[in-house]
């Protein structure tokens, strides 16, 4: 006699947490933070309820694009060590379920953001979801080593959306925040690709390390970090900057440049000796780098009403 628990479909039945994992909660955290900073750095104030709802809907939109990405990339996720435990390759969620969840939540989040904030913010969110799910995941990721460079724009749109939620329009400051994330993404992921040695090779994803080699990747990291440092410090002189931001930016960028220079000086033999220590340190610093830059912008905006933030 067959017991009901012997059927794989029943034993592997997805829990709520598995659907939540499809939405890439760690990416959602970053999105929530950068949307909040974009919204509060804007010169116009937002009603707290409207602001809360708008951020929630942007986070749901980001989660939806994450689910669509996991649906499309399930085959390569299964090959890569870093992603093999994601809900679809782990057999917890069916690919069709991820697709349905992604499409449904995309529609819901865009519609609700339009109602809660404004149509321009909703259009920008729709474009961001399209950019991440279609342009990055479907077109670029497996086709070009520039996947990370161009695809990084998807992660850079949230502060612009936050700004539009507050003001209903674009501005130079919003695009400075966009460029900060856009320029930060390539060195961040290339450092990861350097020490996650075989992952991208196994999955045949054309990362720069695979197509142009590791010495070229090291040169690219240094070049992008120099450009990023100029931009990050330059942002300090704009309307969203101030003494606090400028101090944070100068200190962080000195350390970031030193890290990139160290990576550029090394070769694979040196890196293997200490198990990619410099690359790992640079990657860890890059996480703090973005958080602290946006934290400083937030602090400037929060202190401004008391005459302390900004110039």
């Amino acid at each position, binding site marked *: *006699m067959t*017991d*009901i*628990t012997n059927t794989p479909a*029943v034993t592997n039945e997805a*829990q*709520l947490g598995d659907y939540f994992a499809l939405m890439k909660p760690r990416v959602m955290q970053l999105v929530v933070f950068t949307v909040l900073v974009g919204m509060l750095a804007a010169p116009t104030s937002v*009603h707290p309820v*409207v602001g809360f*709802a708008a951020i929630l809907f942007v986070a749901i939109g980001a989660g939806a694009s994450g689910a669509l990405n996991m649906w499309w990339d399930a085959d390569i996720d299964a090959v890569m060590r870093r992603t093999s435990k994601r809900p679809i390759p782990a057999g917890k969620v069916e690919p069709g379920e991820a697709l349905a969840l992604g499409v449904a939540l995309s529609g819901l989040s865009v519609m609700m953001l339009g109602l809660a904030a404004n149509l321009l913010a909703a259009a920008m969110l729709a474009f961001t979801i399209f950019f991440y799910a279609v342009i990055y995941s479907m077109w670029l990721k497996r086709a070009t080593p520039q996947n990370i460079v161009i695809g990084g724009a998807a992660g850079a749109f949230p502060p612009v959306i936050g700004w539009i939620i507050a003001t209903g329009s674009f501005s130079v400051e919003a695009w400075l925040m966009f460029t900060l994330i856009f320029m930060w993404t390539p060195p961040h992921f290339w450092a990861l690709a350097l020490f996650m040695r075989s992952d991208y090779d196994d999955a045949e994803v054309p990362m720069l390390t695979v197509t142009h080699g590791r010495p070229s990747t090291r040169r690219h990291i240094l070049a992008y970090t120099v450009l990023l440092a100029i931009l990050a410090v330059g942002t300090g002189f704009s309307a969203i900057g101030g003494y606090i931001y400028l101090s944070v930016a100068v200190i962080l960028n000195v350390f970031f440049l030193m890290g990139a220079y160290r990576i550029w000086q090394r070769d694979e033999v040196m890196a293997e000796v200490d198990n990619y220590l410099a690359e790992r340190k640079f990657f860890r610093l890059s996480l703090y780098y973005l958080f602290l830059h946006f934290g400083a912008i937030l602090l400037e905006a929060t202190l401004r009403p008391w005459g302390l933030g900004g110039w």
Partner: protein
Amino acid sequence: MGIRAEHEIHGRRKGRNIGVGLMLGGFVLLVMVLTFVKITDTDFTRAPGTANPAPSAEATD
């Protein structure tokens, strides 16, 4: 061997259903509060697309 009325799978599904129910309830509540804020914040005496009227003389006195 008969099927028991309450299987372990039912317990797990119950947890998932309660979670979905709470999220839907939260969504309804959020839309309600958002609607209230939008209605109370909107000046319905003004024609759409026009600027806020300047404060009247009485109001500034």
